[in-house]
């Protein structure tokens, strides 16, 4: 073993070999980023090995080392070429074994003098054999393009064989000492690494181009879809129009013969057909009673409904799983169709290919889209299925935006109407109650859910007459508010007359009946008070009875009449009751929500407690009495919910 000098190293073939290896290494380094399978790393290992070996051998003259390292080099190369292929497993093992055996034998032969009769020329045959193994493996697997490594090796094995073969042949024929071998053949033969790297680069590019063209096509389809659906939205649109448009796009972009879209019903667990176009053979057995005529079947399919889980479409709607049946005729899932025979009898009923996907908005399944091909037409391929899924996602987005728009519209309509109702009510609830020297009036009202359903008013009809009204309109919202407005308008008109209070109520009723729905009936109670004399008239339309507290006897009287609400029957006649209030007497009008207010134990406040509350506070002004009743009520209810509006109107005589 000798160590060479620096100039000897420079003069050696090392530099030419290193330059080839450097280029190859550069290429593999840049490939590492794209390489998912890690083979660039393996090639870099081989290159590193060669760099180390060549540098070492340039510096140190170790006899036998070139041959031994060659065996290792060829093993590595053979591994790279054969490893991706199942079929070459045995060949690979054989190559490795032969090389290992040759290496061992050579060491024994060269250093231990074993088997001296062995011709020295035998050994360089081993790399030649390796090269032939590479060729054999390459030839056998030439058409295997399964994964990246297989494809690469199938494409590059000729180059690898040529370079390794040349190297091995030159080593055999020219010998390791030959200048041609050492200076020309060896560096040149490293070129296989360069070529393999370039082929790999080319392969990666081809894949990128393929992906780009796929995305280009997808974007085209999406544009088509958005354009179609958008065009419909510009006109006057119904759900059916929008879905019909989407359905047509699904059919066109998948090359289907027909398609249909079903939507899940809002309130029921069923799906309903909303769009249907082309020839769509039903992917489920038809009802027996349905005549097998095309017009009948189409008509049936255009309006069909199924429960969730019923038929393949109901199943998709229930489970959210895609159905892809490229070859329906041989698909076991559609065996029922074939078994039935009836469906398959007619040409237009023969499904040859079928796909169905759920339409999802976030996590909710809102419908199903399905397309099919008939007869013996082409089948849907994976690309069509991919396209179908893509369009279903985007189509649903577009459609659901439309629905959200509708819902938001409705909501804002409801909110607008609630706002209107609240405004109306704020104008008709009295802001100030008239007061008289002989009569004081107080009130409090507390709505249960924002918008009032209770109505009350106090009208000064004449010098000495005041009319108090309290009412409860069923329902909430603008309609209820309008009923209140109507009642108030009529009252203001007629209370100026000197008709008695029962007639007033009759007129209100006649004015209202027939103009409102039964869900907006109103209960009403009216008192008319003569502030000078204390004479009180009372009429009632199904409202809570009048409560009168008598100061002189410290008792509560309940005044009631049997009656029906306003709005039920035009000809209804209301009756009145007359009485007289004396100094200190208190008359109270109130709504259901007061006496029916429940505490956490489920007990109702009740008329008796109301009476007692009035009696307890009999010395206070009506406004304060109302306030005290309000706080007693809150205390009574405690933590329970208030489920009805509470209104109370208090009159106190001070004669």
């Amino acid at each position, binding site marked *: 073993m000798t160590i060479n000098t620096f100039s000897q190293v420079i003069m050696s073939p090392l530099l030419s070999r290193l330059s080839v290896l450097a280029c190859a290494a550069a290429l593999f380094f840049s490939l590492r980023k794209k390489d998912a399978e890690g083979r660039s790393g393996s090639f870099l290992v081989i290159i590193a090995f060669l760099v180390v070996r060549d540098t070492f051998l340039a510096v140190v003259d170790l006899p036998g080392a070139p041959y031994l390292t060659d065996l290792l080099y060829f093993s590595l190369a053979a591994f790279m070429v054969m490893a991706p292929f199942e079929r070459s497993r045995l060949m690979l093992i054989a190559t490795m074994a032969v090389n290992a055996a040759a290496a061992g034998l050579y060491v024994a032969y060269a250093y231990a003098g074993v088997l001296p009769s062995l011709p020295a020329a035998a050994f360089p045959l081993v790399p030649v054999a390796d090269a032939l193994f590479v060729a054999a493996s390459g030839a056998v697997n030439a058409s295997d393009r399964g994964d990246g490594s297989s494809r690469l090796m199938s494409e590059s094995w000729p180059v690898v064989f040529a370079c390794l073969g040349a190297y091995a042949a030159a080593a055999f024929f020219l010998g390791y000492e030959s200048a041609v071998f050492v200076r020309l053949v060896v560096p040149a033969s490293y070129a296989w690494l360069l070529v393999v790297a370039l082929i790999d680069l080319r392969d990666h590019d081809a894949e990128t181009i393929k992906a780009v063209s796929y995305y280009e096509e997808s974007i085209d389809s999406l544009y088509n879809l958005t354009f179609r659906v958008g065009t419909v939205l510009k006109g006057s649109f119904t759900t059916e129009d929008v879905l019909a448009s989407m359905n047509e796009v699904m059919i066109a972009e998948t090359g289907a013969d027909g398609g249909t879209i079903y939507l899940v019903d809002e*309130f*029921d667990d069923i799906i309903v057909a909303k769009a249907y176009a082309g020839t769509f053979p039903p992917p489920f057995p038809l009802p027996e009673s349905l005549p097998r005529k095309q017009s*009948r079947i189409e*008509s*049936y399919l*255009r*309006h069909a409904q199924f429960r969730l889980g019923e038929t393949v479409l109901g199943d998709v709607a229930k489970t959210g799983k895609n159905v892809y049946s490229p070859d329906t005729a041989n698909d076991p899932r559609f065996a029922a169709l074939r078994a039935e025979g009836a469906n398959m009898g007619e040409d237009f009923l023969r499904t040859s290919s079928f796909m169905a996907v759920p339409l999802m908005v976030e996590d909710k399944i809102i419908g199903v889209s399905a397309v099919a091909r008939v007869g013996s037409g082409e089948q849907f391929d994976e690309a069509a299925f991919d396209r179908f899924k893509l369009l279903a996602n985007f189509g649903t987005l577009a459609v659901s935006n439309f629905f959200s728009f509708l819902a938001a519209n409705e909501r804002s309509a409801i909110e607008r109407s609630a706002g209107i109702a609240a405004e109306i009510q704020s104008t008709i609830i009295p802001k100030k109650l008239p007061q008289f020297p002989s009569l004081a009036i107080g009130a409090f009202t507390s709505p249960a859910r924002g918008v009032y359903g209770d109505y009350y008013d106090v009208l000064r009809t004449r010098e000495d007459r005041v009319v108090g009204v309290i009412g409860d309109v069923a329902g909430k919202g603008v309609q209820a508010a309008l009923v209140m407005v109507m009642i108030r308008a009529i009252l203001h008109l007629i209370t100026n007359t000197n008709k008695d209070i029962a007639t007033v109520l009759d007129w209100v009723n006649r004015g209202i009946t027939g103009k409102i729905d039964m869900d907006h009936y109103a209960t009403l109670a009216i008192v008319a008070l003569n502030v000078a004399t204390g004479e009180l008239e009372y009429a009632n339309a199904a409202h809570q009875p009048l409560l009168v507290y008598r100061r002189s006897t410290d008792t509560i009287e309940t005044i009631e009449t049997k009656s029906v609400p306003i709005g039920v029957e035009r000809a209804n006649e209301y009756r009145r009751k007359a009485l007289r209030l004396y100094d200190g007497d208190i008359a109270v009008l109130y709504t259901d929500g007061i006496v029916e207010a429940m505490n956490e134990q489920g007990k109702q406040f009740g008329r008796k407690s109301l009476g007692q509350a009035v009696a307890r506070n009999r010395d206070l002004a009506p406004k304060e009495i109302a306030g005290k009743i309000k706080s007693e009520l809150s205390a009574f209810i405690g933590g329970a919910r208030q489920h009805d509006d509470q209104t109370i109107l208090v009159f106190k005589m001070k004669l």
Partner: protein
Amino acid sequence: MELKIRKNGNNYIIDVNGEMDLYNSYKLKELVMKMLEKKVERFIINLENVDYIDSSGIGALIYICSTIKKMSLKLIITNIHGSVKKVIELTKLMGYFPITNSIEEAILQMED
């Protein structure tokens, strides 16, 4: 509740609008009886705009259905939905009434 009649060939379509309840279901009965007197033979009752029906409404439909059956004439009820469909299902009369999902199918079925 409003009742409107239109014709499609020999088929008379009664469009019912509103609610079929204990106060107004008799109106549908009366109308059909009148039409029977006028020798109408094919009835399609369209409940597309009916979103409420109670036992009186069902009773009216039963009465109409049995009368028409007895006279060997034809009746189809269409476009039931929502709670109307639910009530008919609860009363287990889905198979008893001749029902189709749409007027289009009803007209085709009349031809059978």
